[in-house]
């Protein structure tokens, strides 16, 4: 069964929703960028279309794939943790996304089609997290909130 709920899948496929991809650089410093083309493929991978070969994100994704480091994607109030598992630079999959990018952005190029395997979904919706926090960590609540 997919890790991603159907609501989340729909949200990911919504072109107008903002999706942020966070990677780690060589010094383990986080680096987050908006991934405007982020989408799902038929196998349930998150697909990040990297337009620039030498971008920090492209190199960080490669480092993640090479050395087994996690990345995360934030979509609305959800954080999806995962691993890049494949970079397409040629072939039918690449071409399909290349044409997609070129339809949307004038004179754009596409460097890599990154497939990211989702491994964990964290629901960061405030109401959900607040309830969890208050149940699990009752000692971190300010008392004035609990008075009559």
């Amino acid at each position: 069964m997919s890790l991603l709920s159907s609501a989340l899948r729909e949200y990911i496929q919504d072109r107008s929703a903002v999706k942020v991809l966070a990677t780690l650089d060589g010094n383990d410093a986080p680096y987050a960028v908006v991934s405007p083309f982020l989408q799902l493929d038929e196998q349930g991978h998150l697909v990040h279309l990297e337009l620039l070969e030498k971008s920090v994100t492209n190199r960080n994704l490669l480092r993640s794939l090479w050395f087994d480091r996690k990345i995360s994607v934030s979509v609305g109030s959800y954080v999806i943790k995962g691993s890049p598992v494949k970079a397409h630079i040629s072939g039918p999959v690449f071409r399909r996304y290349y044409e997609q990018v070129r339809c949307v952005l004038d004179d754009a190029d596409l460097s890599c089609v990154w497939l990211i395997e989702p491994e964990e979904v964290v629901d960061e919706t405030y109401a959900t997290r607040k309830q969890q926090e208050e149940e699990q960590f009752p000692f971190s609540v300010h008392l004035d909130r609990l008075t009559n």
Partner: protein
Amino acid sequence: MRLALAGKTAPTPIDEVVRRYPDVPRLLVIKTDVQRRGVFYSDAALALLDETQHQTTGTHIFGARDGLIALRPESLLLRDGSSIITTPTPLEENPYVVDAKDGVPWLFDDGIPLEAVDYWPAPDFYARTSSSGVPMKNIVSARPQRLNIFPYRYCTFWNNNKGCSFCDIVSQLKKGGKELNIPAKLDPREVGDVIGEALKEPGRFSSVFLTSGSIVSGQEAFDDEVDYYIQILHEVGRHFKAPKFPSQIIGTAFTKKQLQRLYDETGLMSYTSDIEVLNEELFNKLCPGKAEWIGYREWKKRLVDAVEVFGPGRVNTGLVAGIELAGPHGFSSEDEALERTLDEAEELARQGVSTVFIVWSPRPDTPLGDQKNASLDYYIRLARGLHALRVKYRLPIGFDDYRHCGNHPDSDLSRLLPY
């Protein structure tokens, strides 16, 4: 299939090397070792090969390690987008095996599955035929992102039997001419037409590459080779808006005047001239034609001259790594070979010339065909050493990287560099 788990199986002999070099990705170690040991395709793997979708062997200027011309995958793509350019190798020589697993090709070592691989995708123009009736793929061939032009499949160093000791260009020409209908010398106009067809495919190619055997003739030695490249590059250039287009040539070490002509009169953007081995004595023994016509020191000088013409980060030289250890004249230890090679590579890097290597695969129709190549450890150390020189001297290698060539473990490492 969950690709993320593809690399995590039982321990294999490469794991020891992976542990020793934590800065080198496992995929690169696998790639290098597959290049070193070659591959054998099982029947099930060959059944997954589809000529309408995949590139098959036969178009290359050099031959295979098993000496056969047969329908096999041209090469493999790993999941980091890099290629393994490797040759089919007989099972007795202990190659990696490509077999089918879950309906896709996988690399196996000693029965242990290592990685899923893709066969190189066939470009659209492979299905077409040129105006003279030759299949277009026999005129221009492809790598995942590169168009290959091998305009002249002979090398005149062989005229007096002074070709390089690891080279099978002439025997491959004989086989290719007979069995594959590949013209020995291409018509520039026809090359241009095929390039025009190839460029119609969206998102497929990001550079044009030319190499041929050396042509010693001309008013000045090698003028004919330069003239021929210029003719071909003119025909290629008519398809581009700008005067320069991403391109690379592997040519003989030309004089500065010849280099300047190549740069000024064509769209060429980068230049490679393979010195093959970084040691004067070995160069003289293993590359007697190059030694006779140009000489080791002059070869190096011309590489440095090329930096003035093409600019830093646009010139390199290639090594056939492993030949420096082969035969009675080779270095006696890998430590010595590494130290001496990197010393000379550094002298070139300081002057703006990058060095890349290919893993030597001994081919049957060559004088060194019965020798063994070096250890995996050696190749990994060499890759790290050459990459470190590019870092130290800030030399970009974008024209000869995993996208444009795919045959150099050292330039794969440079993918993480910001330049």
